[in-house]
């Protein structure tokens, strides 16, 4: 093509073309990232995210933030560092939550008939907002990893507490003490998932008192910081524009 030619005939057309591409890019990025993030999250933290009786104070709090900070870190590495768009983490979480909510309604409830208040997804939005705001305010990957990553881990349980608290109240059923969430799992039988493979709090952390969730959240925050660093660089690589020369 000629180096002196423009593909558009006026500034107005250039603006229109540019805005149209913005929408096409946003749509594509949103749904492709949604797909990759969702398959990653469902297969690394999914069981804790699917069912309320897995949403305990120890493993859910530990696993979910660690495995979910990955894609937000990678997408921030492109959206902020190349375009100064301060919503990399939020757009990832919006995508993940959209994919999850559609699935829980259409398939968990619509196909296999589990009630939505037994299989709703975890809320990751508070951590995502903080992660984006820290990056926007500091313009520093290191501070975002340390402060934002820590907030990501620490905010997860409080961010879900208003939804989960009513399901963690104790009930006595056939002479046994359990939570309402456990009772849901007891009634809605998952034939392929017998009770003995459920990985939930076993009580050993109570050796230090009853502070299970805070200890788990701090451990999760620590690992989230490390994962953020790692995935930031993954994101930089995935955002590359390099070509391999054919031999």
């Amino acid at each position: 093509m000629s180096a002196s030619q423009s593909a558009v005939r006026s500034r107005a057309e250039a603006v229109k073309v540019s805005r149209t591409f913005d929408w096409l890019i946003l749509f594509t990025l949103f749904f492709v990232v949604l797909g990759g993030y969702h398959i990653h999250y469902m297969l690394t933290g999914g069981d804790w995210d699917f069912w309320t009786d897995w949403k305990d104070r120890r493993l859910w709090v530990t696993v979910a933030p660690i495995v979910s900070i990955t894609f937000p870190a990678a997408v921030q590495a492109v959206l902020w560092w190349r375009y100064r768009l301060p919503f990399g983490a939020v757009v990832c979480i919006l995508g993940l939550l959209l994919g999850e909510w559609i699935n829980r309604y259409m398939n968990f409830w619509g196909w296999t008939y589990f009630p939505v208040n037994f299989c709703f997804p975890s809320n990751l939005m508070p951590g995502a907002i903080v992660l984006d705001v820290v990056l926007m305010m500091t313009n520093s990957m290191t501070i975002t990893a340390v402060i934002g990553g820590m907030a990501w881990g620490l905010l997860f349980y409080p961010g879900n507490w208003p939804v989960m608290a009513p399901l963690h109240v104790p009930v006595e059923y056939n002479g046994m003490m359990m939570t309402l969430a456990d009772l849901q799992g007891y009634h809605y039988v998952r034939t392929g998932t017998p009770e003995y493979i459920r990985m939930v709090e076993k009580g050993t952390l109570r050796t230090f008192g009853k502070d299970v969730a805070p200890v788990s959240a701090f451990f999760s925050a620590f690992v989230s910081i490390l994962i953020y660093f790692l995935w930031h660089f993954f994101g930089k690589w995935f955002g590359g524009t390099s070509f391999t020369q054919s031999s």
Partner: protein
Amino acid sequence: MAATTESVRADAAEAPLLNKKNMILGSLLYVVFYAWVRWYEGIYGWSAGLDSFAPEFETYWMNFLYIEFVLEVSTAGILWGYIWKTRDRKVMSITPREELRRHFTHWTWLVMYAFAIYYGASYFTEQDGTWHQTIVRDTDFTPSHIIEFYLSYPIYIITGGACFLYAKTRLPTYQQGLHLQYMVAVVGPFMILPNVGLNEWGHTFWFMEELFVAPLHYGFVFFGWAALGVMGVVNTEVIAIAKLLKKDLA
């Protein structure tokens, strides 16, 4: 003025930069087709999909599998063959406006890829989780697998391959070699399909319970990361389009 009038006439007669009709029809194709698939699952999953030894399973599910195999191979062959056969042999000498038009067509393909990836990696994959954690499997070809692995995954592979081939055969931007991140974005999700081999081998060998986060599934996770390669495609496209527009859009 006469020349201007001619030019305006020529503009009016030429093809639009973005063919919205193709975009809408393509999107509807995915959405309506998958709505029908979901309806089929809802009806025949429970009534004919619980026992792989039952005759109705053969009728409603194995036949579905055989038909989709044939259609997928045919579609891939025809579509990829057509894009390759009709490639532009003088791609480096097209006008900037034609190049911009082709970028729009390329993005129409990428939007279709977004639909295909969403349905494959998100919708039908998590759906498989709830099916298997609820119904005990007695075959590799369960109703959810026949849709997830052997329908929705091939469809995004076909769509992704078409995107890549279109870019490679019609856009000057992609003529300097093979775009690494684009290949990752297309080949990575493609590798999820061969990874089904590991998955089914493991499920058959151990006949284990349905823990969705089991390490056996981590191959899917690894190749799912490759979807992030779309960010490299976006960056390349933004650079190319900005060069074509040559306008200060601030």
